[in-house]
């Protein structure tokens, strides 16, 4: 029941919110508090059957949802973070990395795979929020760059699924430069007419939004996802006013003109396939 831990740990649901039943059988919706059978939730692409809340899921779940029969080949699986600045805050960055790797079973905050979507080849690179808030460090920049290069090599579309608080502060300016690196690769791919699909999920903020996530030929978003440059707390502190209801939701960003379409996760695969077919034929 790996998905259960991933979609809940430390993000939207605390352990207390889980129902007191045998492991992973029940799930309490963080939005409407309905109790759902975990197998029903999974069958519904981790979208609440009662209120349509899109649970936060990771790369494994997205790959399963997107690729035909869930079959895909992971790429660049062995990249791990360095510690270029020898960074220590309340604990050393290397220790934080090790602990997070042990806890999540992931190597960093993003994984890449290639596979077929209704028969069309697609390279997908997808963030894992559980890994230091999906933060962007050198590994994320490099893996996105390589995913784009792979798509250029195979002459197929590339997709980035974002779920990130933004920059990884422990890599400071190295993190900042990943905004440039990924955008450079997208510029190159653009010249070669490689389609790029960006899916913004809850949450997508900071340097991730201000680089590749906003640069899609198609900017897709999941319903009600938080999408923004500055985080809501920072904005509130700056302007010293309450924020309007629904501010920075996917729907708000669509109305502002920066997201092309909102896609329910249950229709994600078919919508993707539609786009891929339209571009190909």
């Amino acid at each position, binding site marked *: 029941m790996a998905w259960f831990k991933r979609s809940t740990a430390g993000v939207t649901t605390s352990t207390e919110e889980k129902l007191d039943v045998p492991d992973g059988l029940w799930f309490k919706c963080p939005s409407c508090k309905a109790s759902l059978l975990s197998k029903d939730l999974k069958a519904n692409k981790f979208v609440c059957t009662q209120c349509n809340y899109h649970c936060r899921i990771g790369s494994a779940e997205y790959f399963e949802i997107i690729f035909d029969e869930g079959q895909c080949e992971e790429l660049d699986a062995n990249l791990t973070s360095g510690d270029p600045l020898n960074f220590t805050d309340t604990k050393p960055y290397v220790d934080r990395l090790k602990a997070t790797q042990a806890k999540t079973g992931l190597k960093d905050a993003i994984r890449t795979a290639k596979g077929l979507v209704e028969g069309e080849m697609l390279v997908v690179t997808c963030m894992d929020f559980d890994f230091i808030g999906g933060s962007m460090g050198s590994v994320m920049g490099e893996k996105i760059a390589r995913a784009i290069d792979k798509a250029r090599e195979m002459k197929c579309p590339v997709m980035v699924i974002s779920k990130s608080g933004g920059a990884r502060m422990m890599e400071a300016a190295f993190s900042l430069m990943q905004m440039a690196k990924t955008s450079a690769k997208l510029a190159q791919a653009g010249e070669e007419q490689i389609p790029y699909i960006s899916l913004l999920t809850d949450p997508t903020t900071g340097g991730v939004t201000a680089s590749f996530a906003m640069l899609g030929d198609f900017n897709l978003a999941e319903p009600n996802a938080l999408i923004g440059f500055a985080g809501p707390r920072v904005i509130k502190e700056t302007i010293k006013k309450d*924020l309007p209801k629904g501010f920075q939701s996917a729907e708000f960003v669509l109305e502002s003109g920066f997201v092309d379409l909102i896609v329910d996760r249950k229709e994600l695969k078919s919508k993707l396939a539609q786009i891929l077919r339209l571009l190909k034929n």
Partner: protein
Amino acid sequence: MIFLEFEKPIQELYEELDKLKEIQEKGKADVTKSISELEQRIEKERKELYANLTGWQKVQVSRHMERPYTLYYIEQMCSDFVEIHGDRCFGDDKAIVGGFASLEGRTVMFIGHQKGINTKMRQYRNFGMANPEGYRKALRLMKMAEKFGKPIVTFIDTPGAFPGIEAEERGQAEAIARNIKEMFMLKVPVICVIVGEGASGGAIGIGVGDRVFMLENTWYSVISPESCSSILWRSWDYKEVAADALKLTAEEMLKNKLIDGIIPEPVGGAHSQPEVMAQTLKQQLLTSLAELDAMSAEKRIETRIDKFCAMGEFHEA
């Protein structure tokens, strides 16, 4: 003269100097010798002090209220400046300025953050925090420079892109993202200089160039030391520690190969002798432009992309 906290010892010497000068003026005694001795001592101490600034102290120098800003540099280095306003879409952002100017007879497109020189102007310039229309104006000007084959120079000095409701509505993230991507493909030479604060996306939004320089006492990172302290240490009290941890000084940025060079400041910081600073900056721009002229547009673009793509440190098992 406004002194920073760490300049206290020098401030005291200046006060002493003022007293001596007063004595001299009133003709009470001949203190010429003492004055010149004291002046020498001030210079010596200032030099020592500035040779060993910490990260946090450099952050303070970079924010000094008397520091020269974009418009000053353009005025000092160039003639025939024609400022161009507006993004032809929403409005004119006062936190980013730009226009053509003549640098030693050559037309260059200058674009830069602009902070205000007094309380009223600081507000007018929104403290150098641009809105999306600022980044879109910048891109419009860059595209125009490209159209007419003129090189681009950007001056970066911002505490960050503005985090506001309207900025979000008008696509702050999209504006910055687009600039970064488009700057890679510009056919003309692009030189970027951090002249004050280089904070995060707001900085790199006009910061992709064939040459990226930092003035000696500036900082460039993904977050300010104060915000970093508040997020990672959950307290505002660790800004000095955060400044060190972020390795945000010109020296460390060059060591990490994240910038191409450091432009020295006069002793005491750019604000102590702004004319000297402007001349040093001008010489560096002329040198770099000559180097970049010698390359083809294709070669420049390729090198620009390769340089940024090499940034990052990771292991591969």
